[in-house]
């Protein structure tokens, strides 16, 4: 599993599901994947490529879903939601249809392709839609399971997959039903992260621990709906919390956690790490762009250390 990309892990599982259920239809807006070659060959009646036409993809998915199909739409992440957002709003969300939008390219996955391909606002766009379930995979084992989770969800879903090969945190047998995983406990601060930043959070936790700061790490992979009872428990039992996301600060994970703290009348101090209100035309790879927006391991470690007054 560690050598398989999230995308291939997801579609390998979806293939198995679709082979048993002829009502599973996958629509692509001219986006491929090695794992899709088999799907297209064996299940050609369950695969449609609409071309670079996301609005066509969304309305087609709606019609198919209204007629009992379980539909998946697939495109590069910046386009799968944003390009056809209004159609997703009025069709998938408003009519509560069992359609899962699958995007590849979370955060700066497409690094040197530039900001047109940086998916750093889609959590905001999808979170605001009623009835939407949002999953953000942190490794390929989880990504594989999201195929089943989304298949069994009768609401509109959004699955975010990273483009890069990420180290494995989970196994296929892990329980993903809670939407949140307390990976590591630490009494001084808890880092709540999602997607790619879960791995960064683990590295930051290691550095902080080396300086005597006991750091917990939480993987919040179901961004909507939040698992409020588990999250509340984590927040109540944390001295301080920092959220980490490879996403704009406006409306993303940190906003979701912050809103929850306020709405639940909690006192947990919160510091949010994410991308400030700016696009990045920068090259030299993902880590370089992350550094420029203040999300390098060293910068996060330093700011947290200062915040804790250590």
């Amino acid at each position, binding site marked *: 599993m560690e050598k398989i990309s999230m995308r291939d892990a997801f579609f390998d599982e979806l293939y198995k599901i679709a082979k048993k259920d002829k009502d599973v239809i996958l629509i692509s807006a001219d986006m491929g994947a090695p794992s899709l070659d088999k799907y297209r060959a064996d299940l050609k009646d369950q695969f449609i490529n*609409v071309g670079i*036409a996301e609005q066509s993809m969304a*309305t087609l998915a709606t019609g198919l879903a209204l*007629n009992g*199909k379980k539909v998946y739409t697939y495109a590069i992440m910046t386009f799968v939601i944003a390009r056809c957002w209004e*159609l997703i709003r*009025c*069709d998938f969300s408003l009519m509560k249809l069992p359609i899962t939008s699958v995007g590849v390219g979370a955060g700066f996955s497409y690094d040197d392709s530039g900001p047109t391909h940086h998916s750093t606002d889609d959590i905001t766009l999808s979170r605001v839609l009623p009835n939407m379930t949002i999953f953000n995979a942190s490794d390929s084992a989880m990504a594989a399971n999201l195929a089943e989770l989304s298949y069994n969800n009768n609401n509109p879903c959004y699955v975010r997959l990273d483009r890069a090969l990420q180290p494995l945190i989970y196994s296929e047998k892990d329980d993903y039903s809670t939407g949140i995983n307390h990976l590591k406990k630490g009494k001084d601060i808890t880092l709540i992260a999602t997607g790619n930043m879960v791995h960064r959070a683990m590295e930051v936790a290691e550095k902080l621990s080396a300086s005597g700061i006991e750091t917990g790490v939480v993987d919040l992979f179901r961004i909507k709906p939040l698992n409020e009872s588990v999250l509340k428990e984590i927040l109540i039992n944390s001295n301080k919390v920092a959220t980490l996301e490879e996403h704009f600060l406006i409306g993303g994970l940190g906003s979701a956690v912050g809103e929850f703290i306020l709405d639940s009348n909690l006192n947990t101090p919160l510091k949010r790490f994410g991308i400030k209100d700016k696009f990045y035309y920068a090259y030299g790879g993902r880590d370089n762009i992350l550094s420029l927006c203040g999300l390098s391991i060293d910068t996060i470690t330093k700011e947290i250390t200062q915040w804790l007054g250590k």
Partner: protein
Amino acid sequence: MNPSINNIEEFQKKCQELREKVLQMCIKAGTGHVTSSFSCVEILAALYYTGILKYDPANPKWEDRDRFILSKGQASPLLYVLLADLGFCPKDSLNKFCCSDGLFGVHLQNDVPGVEMTAGSLGHGLGVGAGIALSSKMNNKSYKVFCVLGDGECYEGSIWESAMFVSHYNLTNLITIVDRNALCVTDYTEKIVHLDPLEEKFKSFGLNAISINGHSYDELMDTLDKAMNSDKPTIIIANTIKGKGIPFMENKPLWHGLAPQGEDAERAIKELTGKGE
């Protein structure tokens, strides 16, 4: 037993009845797109009252029903009046149009029996119809899908994305009708951005495009029959008059989205029915 009108006199009488009910409902509620509804009365009447559409009001989700997509969701008053008349929903639900205890409002919602798609935004219906038509073929079903678009709606790029798809997948079980009343909200379409030559545009996208008089019983029946037996997906450009039936409201941009009130309401009733209120 569903109605099966087969002569022009009865058809025109039904259309008149539908117009009167739409007007009455919207005047009472003080809202509703009267003129948008009036331009497509003959189109919807042809589908629902002459035996073209297969449906069962007692079983709105009957699997083998024909599907009707009203993509120009602002004509919802007409569809609601028609569905109440046919027995899909209680007739007195029309008295509660836009009321707090009512079933429905200005635009279209798909939890009303007989309504396939929530609509109000524009540009969705052709693609949704394509999805239903495609799934029908996937399931080896023989029901048809009818979709009514507004002509202003054809400004939306999504319509053209879907038109390409419909043509490529040769969805002959999808029959689309454009209510070509040549008006948008603010002005006439040809003064805003040319939609014409609309028939040629759809033809160039690979569709079987035909222009007719959208208020003519004979032309509607003849063309719909040909469309249902065509070997290419058909789109009928039905030339209509926005607000047809109330001369002082006909073909006037300012009447978009409004229900006449006060003296205008009295005048509208008089012009439509030939009688006072």
